Each structure stands twice: as structure tokens, then as C-alpha cells.
């Protein structure tokens, strides 16, 4: 999976960081990026309204599932997934690219645009013991990994920079470097 670009949106939906790593692709103008960010923010919010109500499969109500997750962290001390994006737009998969959206509890959204899912020619017997989602979700897991590293790098190099004001565009050169290293 190749990451094409990374965008970071603040709570209000404004674009605070963008990084396009694949130089072969055409670039948009600066304005277009801002519009794209705003659109994604809006679409994500609308999607959370459109999500079908939790069906019978998952009868625990959402607050309980969070408490279970927190209790798991407290008792084992193991890190869990920080993605709080449960009912908003999570991913878009097309023939040319995949887009993943991750949101934190504080409202920051990380958007990853990556290469599309690999075309699977011979669909072998999907081994249901391993995962019940099959080949196509492997990329989602990889994207999740990238997100974890990205969030940690964000909390380190952006939050600890005294010259950065909250919700403003990120201009830190160290952050740029670290992001490039992740990809």
C-alpha cells in the first residue's frame, strides 16, 4: 500500500496540514485543498447522521462498549485503538485510490489517501478463522497502523512546539521530516 497524501483537519474542518508524497500525480491549487478539506469534514458529519441504527447484532449500547474498552485498558495496560470514528465516514474505496478518515476524541481528523486495493484474481477460500473480513481489509489495518504512528508523531512534534498555536496550520519542519519517514 502506497500512501499518496496525508491531510490533517482541525476541529472546525479547516485544513492545517497537507503532504503529498507521490510527485507523479497532478497537484491541486491551494484553494482546492481547502475546499476539499471542508467538503470532507461536512460529508463525514452527514454520514454520521445517515448511518443506520445499530442493529440487533450489536445490542450493547455505545456507552457500554466504551466502558468495556476503557476497562480493558485499565486492567491490561495495553494500548487500544485511538480512533473514535465510529459512525462517521470511515473509508472510501475506488479503483484509483482509497481514502481513510480517522478522528480523535478531540476532533482532529487525519485523512489518508492511498493506492487502491490490490486486485485479487483468484479468490481463494477465505480462511474464516483468521479474519472475518478477508483480503480487502488488510489495507485498512495497514492504514490503521499508519494512523497510530501519525498520531504519536503529531502529539510529539506539533503539540510540543511552543511556536505552534492550536488549530493553526502546521509549519514545523521536524514534523514534515517525521511524516516522510513514516511513509
Amino acid at each position: 500500500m502506497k500512501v499518496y497524501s496525508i491531510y490533517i483537519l482541525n476541529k472546525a474542518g479547516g485544513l492545517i496540514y497537507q503532504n503529498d508524497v507521490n510527485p507523479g500525480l497532478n497537484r491541486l491549487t491551494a484553494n482546492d485543498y481547502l475546499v476539499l478539506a471542508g467538503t470532507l469534514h461536512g460529508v463525514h458529519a452527514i454520514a454520521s447522521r445517515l448511518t443506520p441504527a445499530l442493529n440487533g447484532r450489536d445490542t450493547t449500547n455505545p456507552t457500554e462498549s466504551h466502558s468495556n474498552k476503557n476497562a480493558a485498558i485499565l486492567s491490561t495496560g495495553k494500548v487500544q485503538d485511538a480512533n473514535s470514528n465510529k459512525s462517521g465516514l470511515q473509508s472510501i474505496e475506488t479503483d484509483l485510490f482509497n481514502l481513510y478518515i480517522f478522528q480523535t476524541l478531540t476532533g482532529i481528523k487525519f485523512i489518508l489517501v492511498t493506492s487502491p486495493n490490490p486486485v485479487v484474481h483468484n479468490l481463494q477460500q477465505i480462511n474464516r478463522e483468521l479474519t472475518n473480513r478477508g483480503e480487502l481489509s488488510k489495507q485498512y489495518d495497514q492504514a490503521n497502523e499508519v494512523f497510530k504512528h501519525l498520531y504519536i508523531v503529531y502529539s510529539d512534534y506539533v503539540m510540543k512546539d511552543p511556536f505552534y498555536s492550536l488549530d493553526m496550520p502546521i509549519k514545523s519542519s521536524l514534523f514534515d521530516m517525521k511524516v516522510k519517514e513514516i511513509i
Partner: protein
Amino acid sequence: MSKSSNNRYNGDDIWKNNTEKINSELFTLTYGSIVSQLCRDFNHNYHEVNNQLDKMGYNIGLRLIEEFLAKTGVGRCSTFKETVEVISKLGFKIFLNITPQIENWSSDNKSCSLILPDPNPLTEFVELPNLKDAEILKELWYSQILCGVLRGALQMVQLDVDVNFVKDTLRGDDKTEIRLKLNKFLKDEVPAGED
């Protein structure tokens, strides 16, 4: 801390593996240097110093919460009780390597006290110079920055809390106690997409 023999304190795994550790004395000395500089800048008006420390803590808290969430992946807590438990077992453990006790829950479960263990990294080997200046004992809350940090961090997860010191061993009390009071849950600011 008699419970500690039964429950293994829980931030341990994250503390051991995911955090880069340093000597706490540099931290203690740096904090001390700031407090004394603030006292001189404000001409020993300790109420102002407390306010400034609180503001500084607030700014830190706004940023610290991201690191906390990134390192632990904690989800939204359903009750204030859970929030305080997460703060004391994970938050304090990861950042300051101490685990405060939670006590004194109010009847509506909206306020409680955190008892900070002695020694804590902010106040190790610190003594307030009460011979020169008797008011310092009555007015200065030395670790006020912690209150600001808690307030700022909880603000970013849409909880409005009041945090203040009630007792401080530096002042001669028997323990160091912080009181947390939940004012309200800021429902309007919850980001879209959470259930």
C-alpha cells in the same frame, strides 16, 4: 496504598514500553526555577502567581491530551467516575510516574478528591521559604500547574471541570489534595461521528 498489592497498577505496561524516560530531578529543578521566577516577576503577589501557573497548566493540558490519547487509545468515558479513574491510573502514571488515590466522592458523583502521593516530582525536596515571607504559606499553591493541566485536558474532551487545591504538604498539611468538580458535559462540541 494498601490496594496496590492486589491490583497491579495499570498504566505500567504503557509506562514501561512506550515512554521515553528521563531523570526527574531536571524536571523538579526546572519547575522550581519557574515558580521562583514568577514570584519575583509578580512581586510576590501569590494570587497572581497561582493564576499564572494555572494558565500555563491550561495551555499544557490542551496539548497534553493528544499525547495521552495517542499513547493509550482511551475511548470516551461514560461516567465522571470512569474519567477520574483513567486520569489517576493512566494519566498520572504515564506522565509523572505517580498514582494518586481517589477519595471523597460527593453524593451526586460529580466531585472527588485526588490525593497526590509524597514525593511527587514537582515538589521533591522543595521547601517554601516562610521565614522571609509569612504569606507564602497561606497563599501560594506550589503545584497549581497541575490543576491547569487537568482543566485544559478535560476541556478538550468536552468536559467542563473546576480543579483546585485543597491541601498541600508544602504548606504543612498532612497530605496533598486536589478537588475536581464536574460542571457540565459540553455536548455541542462533541465531534461528529462518535456514537
